[in-house]
């Protein structure tokens, strides 16, 4: 405690001020998004630096126009998370513990998927989706969006499950538990943090997806909020207030996740990419 008492304080608060300035610059665009959303009447005019009053009509309009799309996004993202975890968690466990021949190749393949551009996947996927009748379907979009999170989740959960102590698993096996039971009752509960982190990221990836929404849908049947906003700017050039209100609404999940789960997010970014 007493180590950095004497000289430090003033300089350290100076850093805080500098940090606040950096933060202000970095977050300014997001402030401006909110600010514009609260000035729905500004239209194509200049926007005041601070909203003159609390005019929520932009939000009302955005909710009317985009509320359904928000729900679509929520549904599709939730579905993608379920698929992603159901596929990735057992695989991560298998790759971490079973020493299967070919494990290394699979992990290698998982890393390789990060280099495949989404638009290339969409290109091929669209033609197959046409044949399979999956264009304009919730299931089709959920599956495609799940693919965004699966490699990440496998890598992240595997590096976590490697460190689950072997004795615990062996003890359960001696008690007569089969591999599925060991996985469900022992490994999953112990890997809670890795599961939460993977789930969060799978959700964010699916929620932010624009490419699959754009390419795998030809009608308005399944329209997530990202696609909704993109089409909104085409149709409502003069109505920036409600466009920005829709943008604010679409950014809410990210903000909530950041507040509720910041330790998981920082851990996920570092763990998923470096390890």
């Amino acid at each position: 405690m007493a180590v950095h008492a004497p000289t430090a304080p003033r300089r350290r608060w100076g850093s805080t001020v500098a940090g606040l300035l950096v933060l202000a610059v970095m977050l300014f665009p997001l402030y401006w998004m909110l600010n514009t959303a609260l000035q729905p009447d500004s239209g194509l005019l200049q926007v005041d630096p601070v909203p003159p009053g609390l005019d929520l009509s932009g939000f009302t309009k955005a909710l009317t126009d985009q509320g359904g799309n928000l729900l679509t996004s929520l549904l599709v993202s939730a579905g993608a998370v379920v698929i992603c975890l159901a596929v990735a968690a057992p695989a991560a466990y298998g790759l971490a513990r079973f020493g299967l021949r070919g494990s290394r190749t699979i992990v290698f393949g998982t890393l390789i998927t990060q280099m495949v551009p989404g638009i290339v996947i969409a290109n091929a996927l669209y033609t197959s989706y046409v044949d399979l009748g999956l264009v304009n379907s919730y299931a089709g979009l959920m599956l495609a969006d799940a693919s965004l999170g699966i490699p990440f989740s496998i890598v992240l959960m595997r590096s976590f499950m490697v460190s689950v102590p072997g004795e615990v698993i062996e003890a359960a096996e001696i008690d007569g538990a089969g591999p599925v039971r060991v996985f469900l009752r022992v490994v999953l509960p112990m890997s809670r943090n890795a599961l939460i982190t993977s789930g969060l990221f799978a959700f964010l990836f699916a929620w932010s997806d624009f490419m699959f929404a754009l390419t795998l849908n030809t009608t308005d049947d399944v329209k997530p909020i990202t696609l909704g906003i993109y089409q909104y700017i085409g149709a409502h050039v003069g109505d920036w207030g409600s466009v920005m209100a829709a943008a604010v609404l679409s950014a809410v999940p990210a903000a909530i996740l950041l507040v509720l789960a910041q330790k998981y997010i920082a851990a996920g970014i570092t763990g998923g990419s470096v390890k």
Partner: protein
Amino acid sequence: MTTSTATAPPAAAPRKSTAPDPARARLCRRLARWGFVAPAVVFMLLFFGYPLVRNVVMSFQHYTPKTFFTGEAPFNGADNWSSVFQDALFGKALWHTLVFTAGSLLGQFCVGLALAVFFNRRFPLGGVLRSLILLPWLVPMVVSGVVWRRILDQDTGVLNTFLDTLGLGGHTPWLTSPGTALLSVILVNVWIGIPFNMVILYGGLQEIPKELYEAASLDGASAWRAFRSVTLPLLKPVITVVLVLGFMSTVKILDLILALTDGGPADATQTLGTLTYQNSFVELDFGAGAVVGNVLILISAVFAVFYLRANRTEGK
């Protein structure tokens, strides 16, 4: 990793063997183990492996808007390839992709590193500020694009208004002139990428033992000298990973460019990603789209080699 599982686990021996023959029991166990991994392998083959192969095949097929009704896409040799390569737009898109990627990486990395070093010092509220900076990275990219489109508007955007107040011009057509559009798109992407770079580099900095800096300062090294001789060399593996991951995610960006400029004005921000999209999904010439997509994969593949090498040297 192989030690614990190469031989049959001890649990198998004392248990009464219920299966009639042990070879079958072993096979069952092996199948059960593969059962854990198989769904993921199948999924990744379908959603990553298959598209790679399919794109190569498609690049030799003639797709028209009618293809999806008739199901006919006859092979047409190298026609798609030669027509794409002869189109001047392809060369432009390739160049824009390289400029966009290099510019974005340079900006993201330098600012990200500076911020990581800055936040590596302990100061009040440092942790809170650091995690709040992540917010731009978490907002969907299309949404960021839309917001910046408003900010960069030539006549009523806040950036020009601000520059005007300072007497620094303030009439730059950021996104609407072919001369500045690509630069503007790069700047926005730098803003998006800073948090990611910062977080990973910060993680790397945290791993560097503090004693090394104490030793350096005892030896009379300046802060800059310590940065060059201690920080940079020890951070090198993390730097490689950040740059390679950044490259692979930047080279294929589509969302942001579509939201900001739709590839315009006058194709000034058309990249390989947007060109693939335009060929396939706007003009419905999936063969030409596949050609451009293959080029994009090829570029990524070259860098994947770097990535794997980095991954290996960092190794376990």
